[in-house]
Each structure stands twice: as structure tokens, then as C-alpha cells.
């Protein structure tokens, strides 16, 4: 087991190094941060001097090596545009993204599971078909369109919910939360809804497929024979057997939601990490872009590793497969 864990961690580190390497290759095509930082009246000499001070004249391997060395010591530098410590900047933005993702996840389970069960039970009914078709629409609409539509309906036309921002937030230590104020809770609704739409359809389809399979199993037939009411069979016995894959999917999707949040945050001016990254791209703010990419890849790697390790505990055969594939002896 220990060998397996060490191996997985080493893999994760390699992935992160590769991400940083690719990022630094791409940054060279992003443009020149110096031109964004100085104003119109700066002279050529001043521009060259600043470029030198930022170390932008060094080769990309040198810049990459410097970044990795500093990152290993937890140093990500300061943002070119905001002049704040990058880790502080990202730390400030993390709670907003995290709360948005959590609410979207909860929403997707609360809505997706019942819909999945209903469409599985009433397979022959029109309404279920309509839901199925609706879910295809939900999957295919781009999330910025969904966001703008929601704003049009609920903010402009009805005036019920705010179109942008987080409302009032409360600071608890370094964490800022929007859960504790009415305006904070109101502000969460639209972005969470628009972020979770895709996820809802995903959960719904998964639950439906699992339910259909479970309904054909012997124990459901026996339960029917014992004369249990259909409701108990569906919602208690059958659904329980469907939830394991749903939980796995939800865990795996959190990384994706953080990545998707980028678009939602831009539409709703949600002051999270995604918005920070988008603005960093606009201003060629290399330290922020690099740190964000590292953090997101770290989240992905961690989640994947956790899932793998959990599976290895549950089913040792998987561990042996993984090790065999890696060419090591466990």
C-alpha cells in the first residue's frame, strides 16, 4: 500500500511539473506584460529596464526553473497588476469559488437525483420524455448564455435577484462567506443555478441509467412479491443501490466545476479565482496565471489520487493493476 501511495504522489508531482512547463511555454505567446504595465509616456529605455527587472529577458527554461524553485518554497511572487502577493490574492478569491461550487453541487444532487428516479420509473410517460429532451438542451446550452438568460429573467424583468457580485459577505478568520447575510444568499442563487445546470443533467442521466438496471434485479422483484408499496421500493431500496456511482461522479466533477466556474464568474462578476484568472490573462499577469494553473492542477491531481486510493482500499485488485501497469512489484 505504501509503495502504491508513494507512486501516486510521484505521479502527481510529475503532472504538476508538466503543467507548469506547458504554462510557461504558452506564456510566451500571451504577449508582453511590460507594455500593459507602463503608460503611454514611458520611454523605450524605461520599458527595457522593467523587462530586465522582471526577468522576462531570460530564456524560458531559466524562467521555468526559477518559477519551480520559488514555487517549491511556496513563493509565487506578486501580481504585476495588483501588486499583491499572489497566494494572498488567490486565497482571498478561493472562498467565493468554493462556496459557489459547493452550492452548485448540492443543487445538482437535490434536483438531479429525484428527476433521475422519476424519469426511470415513468419511462413510458410523456413528461419523462420531455425531461429527457430538456436535459439534452441543458447539456448543450453554453453556460454564459444560460447566465445571461437567467439575469434577463430574474434581475431585469422580475427584479428578484441581483445580476452580479456576492452581496454582503462576512469574514470568519481568513474565510469570507456569503451564507450568513440575506444579500449574500440571494447573490448565490443565479450563479449557482447556471453553474449547476450541466451537472444536474449529468446526475439525472446517471441515476436514471442506474435505476433502470437496479429495477431489473432480483431483490426488487422479491420486494414487489412481498407486497411492499412501490414508493418504498423505488425511493428506499432501489435508489440506495444507485448512489455509489453518483457520489464518485460528484467527487470527480468538483475539479471540473472549479474549471467551469471561470465562465460563470465572468458573467456574474463573481469575485472568485476564475475571474481573477481571466483578468490575469487580459493583463498578461504571469505570476497570477502560473499560480492559478498550479492550484487547479493540484486540485485535480489530489481528487484523482483520492479516488484511486479509495478504490484501491475497496478493491485491492485495482491496486495490483495499477502497479502492474506501472511495472513495479507491490
Amino acid at each position: 500500500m505504501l509503495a502504491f501511495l508513494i507512486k501516486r504522489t510521484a505521479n502527481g508531482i510529475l503532472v504538476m511539473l508538466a503543467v507548469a512547463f506547458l504554462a510557461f511555454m504558452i506564456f510566451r505567446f500571451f504577449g508582453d506584460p511590460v507594455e500593459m504595465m507602463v503608460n503611454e509616456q514611458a520611454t523605450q529605455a524605461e520599458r527595457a529596464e522593467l523587462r530586465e527587472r522582471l526577468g522576462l529577458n531570460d530564456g524560458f527554461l531559466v524562467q521555468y526553473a526559477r518559477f519551480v524553485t520559488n514555487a517549491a518554497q511556496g513563493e509565487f511572487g506578486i501580481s504585476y497588476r495588483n501588486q499583491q502577493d499572489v497566494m494572498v490574492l488567490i486565497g482571498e478569491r478561493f472562498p467565493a469559488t468554493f462556496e459557489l461550487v459547493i452550492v452548485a453541487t448540492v443543487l445538482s444532487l437535490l434536483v438531479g437525483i429525484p428527476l433521475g428516479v422519476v424519469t426511470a420509473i415513468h419511462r413510458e410517460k410523456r413528461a419523462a420524455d420531455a425531461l429527457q429532451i430538456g436535459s439534452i438542451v441543458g447539456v448543450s446550452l453554453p453556460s454564459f448564455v444560460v447566465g445571461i438568460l437567467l439575469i434577463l429573467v430574474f434581475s431585469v424583468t422580475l427584479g428578484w435577484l441581483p445580476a452580479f457580485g456576492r452581496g454582503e459577505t462576512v469574514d470568519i478568520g481568513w474565510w469570507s462567506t456569503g451564507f450568513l447575510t440575506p444579500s449574500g444568499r440571494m447573490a448565490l442563487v443565479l450563479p449557482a443555478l447556471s453553474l449547476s445546470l450541466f451537472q444536474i443533467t449529468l446526475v439525472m442521466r446517471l441515476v436514471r441509467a442506474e435505476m433502470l438496471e437496479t429495477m431489473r434485479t432480483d431483490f426488487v422483484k422479491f420486494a414487489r412479491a412481498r407486497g411492499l408499496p412501490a414508493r418504498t421500493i423505488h425511493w428506499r431500496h432501489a435508489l440506495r443501490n444507485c448512489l455509489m456511482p453518483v457520489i464518485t461522479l460528484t467527487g470527480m466533477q468538483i475539479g471540473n466545476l472549479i474549471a467551469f466556474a471561470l465562465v460563470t464568474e465572468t458573467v456574474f462578476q463573481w469575485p472568485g479565482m476564475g475571474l481573477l484568472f481571466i483578468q490575469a490573462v487580459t493583463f498578461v499577469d504571469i505570476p497570477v496565471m502560473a499560480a492559478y494553473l498550479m492550484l487547479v492542477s493540484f486540485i485535480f491531481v489530489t481528487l484523482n489520487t483520492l479516488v484511486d486510493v479509495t478504490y484501491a482500499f475497496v478493491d485491492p485488485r485495482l491496486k495490483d493493476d495499477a502497479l502492474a501497469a506501472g511495472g513495479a512489484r507491490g
Partner: protein
Amino acid sequence: MGFRRSLLLATVAATALVSAAEANTLKWGANRDIGSLDPYSYGDSFTINVLNHVYEGLVRYDRDLKIEPALATSWEIMEDGVTWRFTLREGVKFHNGNDFTAEDVVASLERVSDETSPLKGNLPAYVSSKVVDDHTVDVTLNGTYPLLLNDLTNIHIFDKTWLVENNAEKPTDIGAGVEGFATYHANGTGPFIVESRQPDAKTVFVKNPDWWDTPQHNIDRIELTPVTSAATRVAALLSGEINFTNDAPVQDLPRLEAAPNVDVLEGVDLRTVMIGFSFRDALANGEANPFKDVKVREAMYKAIDLEALHKKVMRGKSRVAAAAVAPPIPGYDEALDVLPGYDPDAAKAMLAEAGVPEGLEFNFNCLQDGLVNEEQICQAVASMWSRVGLAPKLDVAPRAVQTPKRTNGQTDTYTLGWATLPMLDAYSPLLQIFHTKEGNSGVFNWGGWSFPELDALVQEAGSELDTQKRLGLETDALKVVKDEFIMLPLHQQPMAWAVTTDVKEMPLFPDNKPRLWYAKM
């Protein structure tokens, strides 16, 4: 809140009650956030403009964009011609209660001119400054220089004691990677005080009750919230969540004008949109460069239908221009603003005469995130050039990607907008764009042209202290720009702000900078 407000405002009596009960809060939805609370941090006009509500300069622009005293009450040029003596306003206090004195001015000028300051270029002639007494300061320049006051409108004055206490006498050096106190805190003399700041979310300013000047505004509180997505910004304005934006998207203006609770403020910006050429021997693809020939440049101008651009692309909201600076800019001369006359046949003939091969390929570099409708402008101009037998290849990408190509001379033709900010004088484009690229001049001379007679005029203007004489020289230099067709002016671009009907007065400035100390609710 938005839909209930209309009920509240049903009667005059109710209105009186409301305004007595709640302070006048102006919710400003900008298209981006300020970079930091330190105006010397990043060469960004918007940040300086917003922080001008908190910090002030020795002089400032009035409602007509004329320079008037601010923290300095008067000034004179000493015998030697290079030292300026400023008499400072007495009784001015910083937000922390400290007195404003000559030491603060010296500390601020030193800070902005520090070698690590990205804003150094905003005070190009500065050499040193010294305290004469508590309310007198001498500033020494590197020569006779007529535009110091224009530069000083944008140099904010800090409190020296506060800088020293917080170890912020030097600007934040990004190269060193260490944070600075002034990034998070502010202490100026201006009409508003920073109450709180959450980057990318909200920055709150409250009225400074001890401001030295008589307020012409009645705003108690400004909440600056960036809303980067244009569609969301429009929605927020329609729903009343913001009541002012300094960037109303051009494509949404009809919708905003139709809304009962929104007023659109439209004007023409000082920014002149121009097309520039490469004057190098070869084009980027290695072919011989025909743009070096003034006849070819003239033909390219004649091939552009400026009226069609104005009507179709700019929806009639721009001002067609043929001069390199806008009418309000000192140095502008109507005689130079004569349109070339659209004549594609003549253009074709001139190109043939100059020996330009049919189907000449060259690149045309435009920004995705630059000027108003820039992409459409470029597409239209490219198709007009195609009509006279040229083959421009459009290259459109974000500013961050295009700027290096432009500065490295990889562009055959390109767009450039110039508003003469922060100087508000024709000297700015003459020195920065049209002068030969050498030393500190011609930083934006991306085509690599050189006209010695123009350079001589610009240099002379740059040290001429008599305003009338100086503007005459600048006009002469602009005439060279015009006669040589160095760049092709297209128009001054439109600008649009929008306010909800809660805002009673919001003067629109042609330099596109909100000055909320003139706003009323």
C-alpha cells in the same frame, strides 16, 4: 430594491423623506477594477482617474478641461528658466489629519520619479525638487519645458509622514516581488476617503467633510463595482443595481435609451483613430515596401470612404476627422482638418502610377480589445483597400499579443488611437508618435519614419514657454504630418456613459474620465 424605488418616488414628499433618510450613494459599475490603491503602481489612466477622487495634484482640470490651481495656488518660472516655484495652498489636511506641506510635494515627486516607478514617464522633465519653506516648493527641470502643469495634473500628492511611517517612500517594485503598504491603504487630500476595498468586488469611498474646496457635488458615498461583462453591466443598469457606468456598450445603446429609468450620455472622445504605415525598406513578407512613397499613402487615404465608416460602422456616432488631434486639443487647426475626398478610381490610378503591383499583399494589424468597434473598422477599411486592387491581410488579436509585433516593426499597417492624455496638448502625439524614434522621443513611432523638419519644430515647441508661439510651432508640425500623410486619421471615436434617473447631474468629459466631484443625485 429597484422596482420598489419607483413606488417610493411616487410623491415629492416621499422623495424628500427618502433623501433625508438615506445618504446619496452613487453605485458606479465600471468595466474593470482599479489595479490598486496606489496611483503610482501601474501605468493605467483609469486607476489614476479613480484615485483622483482620493488624491489630488498641485493643479487640476476644471469643468472645461482648463488647468486650474488645486494644492498649489500659484506658480512662477524663475530667472534660470528651468526652476518652477510653486506656492502651496494653506490649511489643507490629509485624510489622516496631517497638514499638507512642501515636504509632501517633494516626497511625492521623488516617489513618482523613482527608477522603479512605472509612472516615471508621466513627469519626463523632472530633475529634483526642494523645500523653500512650509508652503513653497522649487521644482527643477532638465530644460525649459512648457508642459509641466499638464503633467502635474496627474501626479497625486502623498503625505510624507504617512509614507515614512509605513515604509512606502518608494513605489512598489514588482521586480523585487515585495508588497507595498500603499497598495492596500490610501491617504490623500481629495474630496473622497477610501472606506473599504475588496478587489474585483467593491471599493467604497465616502465624502471627505474636511475637503479644502467647496463641494459642487452632493454625493455621500461612492461604491465602485467592476462589472467586466458588458451584457451584465447593461442588465445591472436596467435593474437599478448600479446607477452609473462610464462604459455603456455601443451595441446596447438603443436598448438603454429605450429604458424609462436610464439616461444615456453620449459625446465624442478626444481619441483620434488613425492608420499607420511601415516606412521600412521591406514589408514583413520581404517584398519591397511601397508605403515609403507619399503618393501611395495619399492614394490609400483616398481609397477609404470615411463617410461610410462614420455611418455604417460607427452608426453616426463618431466625428469624421482628417487631423491628427481633436478640435478641443491646443495646437489643433481647422485648416488641417480637410477631408481627403473619397475617390477609389483616382486612388487606383495613383497606385498604378506609383508602380504598386496589382494585388499587393501586406498585413494590417488590429486589436480585439482596443478602440470602439475596432474589428469592424479594420474589416471595412481592408475591404475598401481591396476594392482598389490591394490585398491587405487582417491580423486581429488582443492587445497583449499585438503590442510586441507593433513595437518590433512587424506590422505593415496598423491602427492607433491617441487621445493626448494626460497632457491634453498636441505636443503629446508629436513627440510620442511623429518624432523620429530616438532617445525618449518617438516611442510610438512604430513605422520608423523620420522627418527632420518636423523633429526640429517639435523640439523647438518642447522648450518654448510662450504658449501662442508654442502652439504655432505645433500646428506647423501637424501640417507636416498632414502633407506627408504619415498617418491617416479616420475619426474621433464616440464615448457613452449611462446613468439611472436617480442621478441628476453627471458632466461628461471629452477625455472620458468621470469626475464625480461635479456629480449630483
